[in-house]
């Protein structure tokens, strides 16, 4: 496959696009590239399973718009400290609207990325689809006492602050922030820092993922799934951020946040600071969450003064997720605008920092409907602090509260089929005949198919 050797020197996505546009029609360029940690070799050309590369980094160095990288079984731990603080895979070649780049497990395979550096996967580019990958951090081999000791040092060690997958626009100029990235059907667990993080990005979809046991040891107050300081690519209608159908659990922060010296966040899902002000109040409940906290920041002096983020006018959807047993909120929005939080199920969150299950704080235009919300004993369903334009209705929760209440709320035990701390073993569907079951409710609640938005309660249809 000689073409990649021709294009290889073209490092900049712009230059690449130029070369491609000048040379060949896009349809001819789509290739399959193969990677195998078990049988590959980086001196291969990657063109077939038999000629697979050994490392993801090699694939990243030759991938072109339209390509699909098929990743075989094996454990991928290769890291390069020179690449964005170190990652197993850094994706810096953008696709195009008509030629996305796909990173996908080979059919029947379950490749696992095990980083020993700052990040599992870093996405610094656009039009990327990442599908079916497992990213597993090192929490099992760390100790809390070491993590707390590390957090008192001026510079944190990556092993205590490692993110699973980060889409990161912070180092990129305003016209090159990452956009159009889909993370689908991935399993991100046991990372000492954040699970899946989107920073200064737009058009990001995170769906059908399992995100658990992350954020325990970092000094950056991480969470399971975070979007932080969204950077608008355009103002086209429709959802720009979609976080849906994920199972998110036991993400929690056990090390104080370096900014406040206190425990903070560890949410299942957080939409953090779309508000463009550079400074603002921090979380009153635990001094939480002024952005940038979600990932390690390089030496501050190396970063040039940043241009202002465009005013965020776009909309986000958080739907059909199950978020349970996290240390912070099930779903938290902080200084963020234009979010629809619909058909989620949250359970027993807030055990570390006491945040509410669905917690909007200093936000504007947030819609919360058709959620099933079960706080832990002593926990709270929701909160309303400094918000404007919050719409709340058709939510189901077991304890009376009137912080936010809608005329169609149902106060009842939702009657889950089976509650377990490991969501892979639990069954958070609603029992037949329960209050969230359509047969027991008015016509608006008839579930016609699994989980259409705005119908039924919670994330999962009844059995």
């Amino acid at each position, binding site marked *: 496959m000689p073409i990649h050797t021709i294009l290889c020197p073209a490092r900049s996505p712009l230059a690449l696009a130029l070369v491609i546009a000048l040379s060949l029609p896009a349809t001819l360029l789509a290739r399959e590239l193969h990677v195998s940690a078990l049988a590959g070799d980086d001196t291969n050309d990657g063109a077939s399973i038999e000629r697979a590369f050994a490392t993801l980094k090699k694939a990243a160095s030759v991938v072109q718009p339209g390509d699909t990288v098929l990743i075989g079984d094996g454990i991928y731990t290769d890291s390069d400290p020179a690449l964005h603080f170190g990652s197993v895979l850094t994706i810096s070649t953008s696709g195009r609207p008509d030629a996305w780049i796909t990173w996908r497990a080979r059919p029947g395979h379950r490749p696992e990325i095990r980083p020993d550096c700052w990040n599992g996967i870093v996405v610094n580019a656009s039009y990327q689809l990442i599908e079916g990958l497992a990213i597993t951090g090192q929490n099992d081999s760390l100790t*809390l006492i070491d993590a707390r000791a590390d957090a008192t040092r001026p510079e944190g060690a990556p092993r205590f602050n490692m993110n699973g997958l980060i889409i990161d626009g912070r180092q990129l100029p305003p016209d090159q922030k990452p956009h159009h990235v889909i993370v689908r059907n991935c399993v991100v667990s046991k990372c000492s820092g954040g699970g899946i993080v989107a920073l200064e990005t737009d058009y990001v979809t995170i769906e059908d993922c399992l995100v658990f046991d992350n954020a325990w040891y970092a000094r950056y107050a991480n969470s399971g799934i975070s979007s932080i300081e969204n950077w608008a690519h355009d103002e086209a209608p429709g959802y720009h951020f979609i976080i849906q159908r994920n199972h998110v659990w036991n993400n929690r922060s056990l090390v104080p946040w370096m900014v406040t010296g206190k425990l903070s966040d560890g949410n299942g899902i957080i939409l953090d600071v779309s508000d463009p002000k550079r400074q603002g109040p921090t979380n009153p409940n635990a001094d939480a969450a002024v952005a940038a906290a979600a990932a390690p920041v390089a030496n501050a002096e190396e970063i040039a003064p940043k241009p202002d983020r465009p005013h965020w006018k776009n909309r986000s959807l958080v739907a059909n997720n199950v978020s349970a047993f996290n240390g912070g909120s099930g779903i938290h929005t902080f200084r963020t605008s234009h979010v629809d939080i619909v058909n989620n199920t949250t359970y027993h969150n807030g055990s570390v920092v*006491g945040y509410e299950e669905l917690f909007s704080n200093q936000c504007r235009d947030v819609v919360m409907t058709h959620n099933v919300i079960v706080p832990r*004993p002593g926990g709270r369903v929701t909160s309303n602090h400094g918000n404007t334009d919050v719409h709340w209705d058709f939510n189901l929760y077991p304890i009376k509260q009137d912080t936010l209440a809608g005329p169609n709320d149902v106060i009842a035990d939702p009657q889950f089929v089976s509650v377990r701390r490991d969501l892979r073993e639990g069954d958070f569907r609603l029992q037949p005949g329960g209050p969230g079951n359509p047969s027991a409710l008015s016509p608006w609640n008839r579930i016609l198919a699994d989980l259409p938005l705005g119908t039924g309660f919670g994330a999962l249809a009844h059995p």
Partner: protein
Amino acid sequence: MKIPVPILLALGLSLASLPARELHVSALTGNDANDGSSSDRAFATLRKAAEVIEPGDTVLIGDGVYSHEEPGYDTAVLHLNKHGRPDAWMTWKAAPGARPEIRPANVWHGIRITGSYIILDGLHVTGLNDSLTLIDAMTDGLTREKDGKPYAGNPRFNTNGISVEGGKNPPDQKPHHIIIRNCVVSKMPGGGIPIIQADYVTVEDCTVFDNAWHMRYAGSGITTFHNWQHDDKPGYHIVIQRNRVWNNRTLVPWVSTGKLSDGNGILLDVTDLARSGASNPNADASVSATPAPGSGSSAVATPSPTANPNPAAAGRPKWTARALVANNLSAFNGGSGIHTFRTAHVDIVNNTTYWNGSVVGYDELFPNRSVDVVFLNNIIVPRPGGRVTGNNQNKDIRWDGNVYPIEQNVHRGPNDIVDDPQFLSIARDLRDADFRLQPGSPGRNSAVAELPQPVDLTGKTRPAGSGSDRGAFEQD
């Protein structure tokens, strides 16, 4: 059954010679104005039964939640301070078919035992961990003074499950002959089952999990501390066997060192007589255990053991008796699976430990500054990066017949096996796990003959098959 008043009077007058009574308690249907003599005339509170119990009596506890809260009262839901006799123990057990649950909230202990000849059987003690937050516990745990006075912490964040506590008893009246059996102790902010200044204590067939998360006193799942020897008779004086112990861990720094410490599954702590001594080199750990003011024992309560010498602790006899730790499954604890610290004369046999040490990094089986400790026929699987065992200033360690998956040379025996023990099914909630051994496991039929255990964790007779198995479970 109704007992005429004259008979009750007679019972009161000639207790010693009369047959034991049954006393009934029901949180659901009882009334403390009843006489407790039948389930229809049950008391409502455990405390009422504790007032009237006599040696030989059995208290049958019915379904319900027991958590009496009295303003200003911060010691325990149930305090057992009476002494039975060798021929007349006092038993507290679940009524047949019942599942009574003790839920201490703002007190230092669920059950506090300062008497002797007492059996607890089949009781659930469940703490508040689900409704606490770590951030609140850290704030409370780091507060050393309030209103200019030393502050020992809010009992809400430091509640122990079942405490045997001799700290305030005179030297000749320390608690002894206590059996804690078939109990489930979970979600305690403090220690699960701490045993302090006591002798002849058995903890068996208990389930002890999710404890010690929120306390400032470095608690563990099951702890003995400062054993106070009752006599010199041979045989085991302390028995900890057939328990399942998991996810006990400390998340709040220990008040004595300002660092995380302990959170072991099982800890035998300080039988040596030094008034103070080195603390754990791994994390400045140990010198345990329970909290303070309301608990009545300044020795165990005082954050620094040297800061406030306790007269009742003076003259502790030298510990020459023996302890047995056998057939336990101890996993996913923040400290060691089984830890001995400045402790002598312990047999640690046929236990299974798995993936302990995630908070403080202690070794799975961790003797430290201990004397005469025997490790036989255990199965030991450290977490990734963890260690099988450690050896810091121990004397007279005997180690053999243990199975572990990674090579190590800290302690070695000629009959050790370095191999995967091949468990059937691992889960972080031990009620969902099955730590028995697969067919072909090297732990099967290969136990060394020394210190044979008659049964396994489930009560199954050993040996089954051509030889006894290593670890906590006997396989066919």
